[in-house]
Structures are given as structure tokens and as C-alpha cells.
């Protein structure tokens, strides 16, 4: 391959003591095949980031809440995937149970804390949600401990597709991409094509007016927040098998 012959030449020149640059991964020498694989890597990672970010944008875009603790919900998801899949022995069951639990978590958090922030300014939201990060980190430490964990890829998706002689692409990553795309479609349908979506959009533009029309805006906001939390947790659960589940996961996001 073009890259490797180029590098070998550079190395042998260095061995003879000639002053050459240490840079040898010249992007121009990357062949088209490697480029396509890297493109696939980029798109796949981008889709995962979309999934993580979708809940954040939902909460900020519709409710105007700056949620710094979003990474914590992502972490909660990953740890739920680990705990529930070791309890049930099946990642898919774990995901279903985990989504239900995270919706409940979102409802409780919105009722207890977030609902008091709508009329306050962004700095106070930052303060509260930053505090939540610390609380979730400590809870994680108390409940699950500080060890590094891994979640096994479900057997049905544990294959890989050979791309080159040396490299193959894990089927699970393709599955992740498909899930992200499906979720993007579902979110679009929910927000733009359903009655609930209409209420959400109306609430985003004028909370008081929606309330005056007799709609329960408090409930709508509660559901939106729960949906945001569930999306983050879902992203964490989907990403857990290709990542490691470890402390400070939240702060890396």
C-alpha cells in the first residue's frame, strides 16, 4: 500500500542517519479505499454523537434549560446497560428496562428540581445542573464502585465484515448507525407530525399562550425533559458495548 512503502523508505533513511522529517503519514498518499473506510468511521461516530446530543438539543431548544448534567445521563445509561445486562443477561432487555427507568428518572428530576428553574436565569440552571453532575458521580461511586467495566456485544451482532485483508468492520457499529438513523426519523415524526409534537413546538414558542389554551404545559415540559434524559441514557446504553464503562465518563462528554 502506498502509505506503508513510503513509511518504510522514510524509516530506512532515518536509520542511515539522514535528517528527514518524522512525519510520514502524508494524507495525499492515503489511497481511496482507506479514505472510504475513514469516511465510514466518521459517519458512524457522527451518528453516535448526534444520538448523544439529540436529548441535549431537545431540552435546551424546547425548554430553554442549559443542562450540564446531560453527560451524567449518558453515564447513567452506560452503567444501566452494564448493571441490567449482567442481571438479565441480555442487552436488549436491559435497554428496554433502562429506557423506562430513565424516563422515570427524568420525570422525577423535572418535578423535583428543573421545574423550579423555568423562571430563573441561565446561571442558576448551570449551577443546579453542575451540582447534579457531582451528585450523579458520587452516586455512581457508591452504587457501582470505581472499577472499569465492559459490556459484551450481543451474540447476534457480534460479527464483523471483512473490509481488507487485515481490517474488518464490527457489525455492531453498523447496527448503532442504523439505530441512530431510525431514531432521527422517529424524532422528526414525533416533533413535526404528531399532536404531542405540535404541543411541544407550541410550548417552545409561547409557554403562557399554550397554557391559556387549556393545554397542560407542565406535563408537556415534564415529558420533554424525560424524553431528553431517556435519549441520553439510550445513547449511553447503545454505546456501552463499544466503549468501556468507567468513572468520569460523564465529564468526558
Amino acid at each position, binding site marked *: 500500500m502506498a502509505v506503508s512503502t513510503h513509511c518504510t523508505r522514510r524509516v530506512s533513511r*532515518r536509520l542511515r542517519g539522514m535528517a528527514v522529517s*518524522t512525519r510520514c503519514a502524508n494524507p495525499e498518499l492515503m489511497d481511496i479505499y482507506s479514505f472510504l473506510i475513514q469516511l465510514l468511521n466518521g459517519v458512524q461516530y457522527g451518528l453516535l454523537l448526534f444520538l448523544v446530543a439529540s436529548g441535549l438539543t431537545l431540552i435546551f431548544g424546547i425548554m430553554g434549560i442549559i443542562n450540564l448534567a446531560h453527560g451524567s445521563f449518558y453515564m447513567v445509561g452506560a452503567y444501566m446497560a452494564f448493571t441490567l445486562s449482567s442481571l438479565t443477561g441480555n442487552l436488549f432487555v436491559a435497554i428496554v428496562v433502562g429506557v423506562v427507568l430513565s424516563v422515570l428518572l427524568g420525570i422525577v428530576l423535572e418535578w423535583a428540581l428543573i421545574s423550579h428553574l423555568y423562571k430563573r436565569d441561565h446561571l442558576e440552571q448551570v449551577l443546579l445542573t453542575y451540582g447534579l453532575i457531582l451528585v450523579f458521580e458520587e452516586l455512581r461511586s457508591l452504587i457501582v464502585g470505581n472499577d*472499569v467495566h465492559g459490556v459484551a456485544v450481543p451474540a447476534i451482532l457480534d460479527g464483523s465484515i471483512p473490509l481488507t485483508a487485515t481490517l474488518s468492520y464490527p457489525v455492531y457499529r453498523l447496527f448503532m448507525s442504523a439505530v441512530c438513523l431510525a431514531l432521527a426519523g422517529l424524532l422528526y415524526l414525533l416533533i413535526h407530525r404528531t399532536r404531542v409534537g405540535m404541543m411541544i413546538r407550541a410550548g417552545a414558542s409561547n409557554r403562557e399562550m399554550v397554557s391559556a389554551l387549556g393545554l397542560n404545559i407542565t406535563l408537556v415540559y415534564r415529558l420533554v425533559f424525560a424524553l431528553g434524559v431517556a435519549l441520553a441514557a439510550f445513547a449511553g446504553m447503545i454505546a456501552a458495548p463499544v466503549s468501556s*464503562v468507567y468513572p468520569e465518563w460523564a465529564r468526558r462528554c
Partner: protein
Amino acid sequence: MEFQPLLTEIASLKPDVVYAFFAGGGAVKFVKDYAAAGLNKTIPLVGPGFLTDGTLEAQGDAAQGLLTTMHYGDGVNNPKNNAFRAAYLKAFKTEPDVYAVQGYDAAQLLIAGANAVKGDMSKRAEIVKAMETAKIDSPRGPFALNKAPQPDPRHLPAQGRGQGEQGRRRRGQEPLRSAARLQALIPRSALPDRAIDRATRFTIGRAIPAIPRCPPYPSRTSGYGRNRARPEVARSVLVGWQR
């Protein structure tokens, strides 16, 4: 932290071996991704023991066939280590790692010193002398301090002793070559179970001074974080691969 682009580069460079230094979460992810990308079938992954220290369980089958080196490994199979691990797990509800073993060894050394003076810690010279002559029964194998004074595994199991080139020549035996030599030099008990199967397939090649390193990516990338360890791909290394 996303390794896919690096793994793609590794695959296109086709190095003899990949040496990667990761610990904790990064180690788990890299080892799993490396195996998921199928690279472990053609390019052996080696690294310091931190790659597997405390992370083996999380890595699962992806760690199969890894070759790592350190002064302790989870899977050291001797009665002392098995007892130590069981007792540690019972006392602390967590698996011991290399630091736990280091602490345990250091404490044993201190106890040897303190016992020699019956707890009178003012007798400094005697304590030091007792520690220098103490034989420590460590989970990683018995050792005593040498003149340096550094831990010296001079009480290695018999299979590891006198199997070097000098020893065998002295006895008029042909020096062991390659895989057989590595097997003889490293007591099996010192290797984690998972490493053994594949370790025997390694062979010691010719050492090349100052391994030239060829970064497979621009040296100033920002996407992975400045302080994040990245896999270094050596093109010529000490170990070769024998099928």
C-alpha cells in the same frame, strides 16, 4: 475517545506488531476495538501490563492472546497469589491490582524489619539489615533484595533458572532457540493464563537498536486530546510472529 480512525491506519500500515500503552477505560476500549476490527488475527498487540491490569474482566474475550509484561499479572497461578487474591477480595470487596501487590510486598518487607528488632524501630541499622536479608513470599513469586537493593527474583521456579545461553553452554547443552527459549526463561506461573497460549508462539528475533518510530498520523492532532495516550506503531520490533 474513538480509536476507529487509528485502527484503520494501523491496518493500512500493516506493522509487525502494535505496542500500545493504555490503562483503565482506554485499555478496555482499545483492546475491544482492536479485536472487533479483526486486527488481532494478523497483527499481535503487545503492551505493558497496565493494558490488562484490572481490566481483563471488562475486556473479556478481546484480551485473548494479548502479550503484556509487568512485575505482576492477575493470573499468576501459584498458591500464594491465589490465597492473596481470595483474601483481598474478601477484605476489600474488589480485585487486587498491581499496586495492591506492591503495597503488600512493601508491608511484608517492613514487617520483616520490625520483627527482627521486636518492634523497636529506633534500631535503624538492624532493621535495614533484616530487610536486606529477608526472603519475601510475594504473590508474584518469592524474592529477596539484592545489593542495589532492588527486589531480585533469585528464587524463581527451577524451570526459569539456568536456562539462559550461558547456563546451557556451561552444561554443554545447545542454547535454546526462539520460542523454546522464551518458554524456558519465563516461568509459566509468571504469565497470566490468557497470555500463555499465544506467548509460546512468539519467538525472539534480532534486536534492532533504537527502534525507529513512524507515527501513522500527523503528530499534532487535537481530536484525541493532548494528554491522551495513543498507540505507537513500531515497524521493527524485538518480537516476530511465528505461525
